[in-house]
């Protein structure tokens, strides 16, 4: 039973592996790249790596996403499927510099 459960738990991971990941890096309270192009109409996984020594919060009103990233940590976030368009996001803890946009094409 336990093995079955484990297998069932691992199943989504195999699906994930096929999906391509997009990476956003936070450094000096800035997102790199500041503009990330992704395909429209598909669910995507974005990996956010925080290279700063302070925590940050990825926030986007248009994507309806909010996620904490601890200092020097990396997290995953799932978004979409998105309609074609521009989706601005920012780092809530350093809003002045941490700005970016996801472009769905």
């Amino acid at each position, binding site marked *: 039973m336990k093995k079955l459960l484990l297998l069932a738990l691992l199943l989504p991971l195999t699906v994930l592996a096929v999906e391509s990941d997009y990476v956003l890096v936070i450094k000096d309270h800035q997102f790199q790249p500041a503009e990330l192009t992704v395909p429209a109409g598909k669910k995507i996984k974005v990996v956010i790596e925080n290279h700063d020594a302070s925590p940050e919060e990825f926030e986007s009103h248009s994507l309806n996403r909010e996620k904490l990233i601890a200092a020097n*940590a990396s997290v995953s976030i799932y978004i979409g499927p998105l309609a074609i368009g521009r989706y601005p996001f920012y780092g809530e*803890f350093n809003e002045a510099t941490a700005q970016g946009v996801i472009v769905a094409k």
Partner: protein
Amino acid sequence: MLSTAIIVFREVLEAAMIIGIVSAATRDVRGRKLWLTAGIILGLLGSGLVAASTGLIASLASGVGQELFNASVLGVAVLMLAWHNVWMASHGAQLASHARNVGARISEGRSECSILLVVVGLAVLREGSETVLFLYGISASAASGANSMLFGGLLGTLAGIAVGYTLYAGLLRIPMRWFFAATGMLVMLLAAGMASSAAHFLIQADVLPSLASPLWDTSAQLSEHSILGMLLHGLIGYDARPAGMQVVFYITVLALIQLGMQWAEKPKKSI
């Protein structure tokens, strides 16, 4: 300073409103203040702990540990609130007629105290950990203006508490005849909103399908970041861009609590 105040206000507001509603709904529980205080203190201690282990939590479950953690915390709170309402409904007849006596009876129910403790504790834990991290980030950066930003944080905290207290004081003014119906309705909506948030986290973690993302978009009419939007988000779980699954969770929890309350009322009526 103002932006800091707003960020902290948003976090504190939600917890403060939950505490306001829950402590009003349990107005007659004996020793309520003690349990309430214990819940807040435990929640604050927990916030520090969660904030300190954010990196660890986030790295669990391949980067979506934070979502799973939040969804679990919300799930427990929803269960507790549902239990509260069903329990109150089973004492509905007495509650409406002679509330004073029932106050004594409620106080016999230790379960209400633990509900108060857990719901308040979890609310503070969830909203508090983010505030702690944010303020820690500010003071650690030691940039110029850190003091004024911390002052902003203090202002935001006080403003949030003020709204929560106003809500509490306002609820207590509701005449006894309608009081339990009104707070019961608020608790039900609060629980449904939390269920919707839990679904939101699980979608963000790719545990649940979104069904539609978003199902509707009313951000132009009523932004979640306006004062009214924030209040409605905290009170009834308003979301300007909800996923279909969130709406499913919201309606399901409303229906289940309603059914539970009706089921609990029935035996009393037949007596």
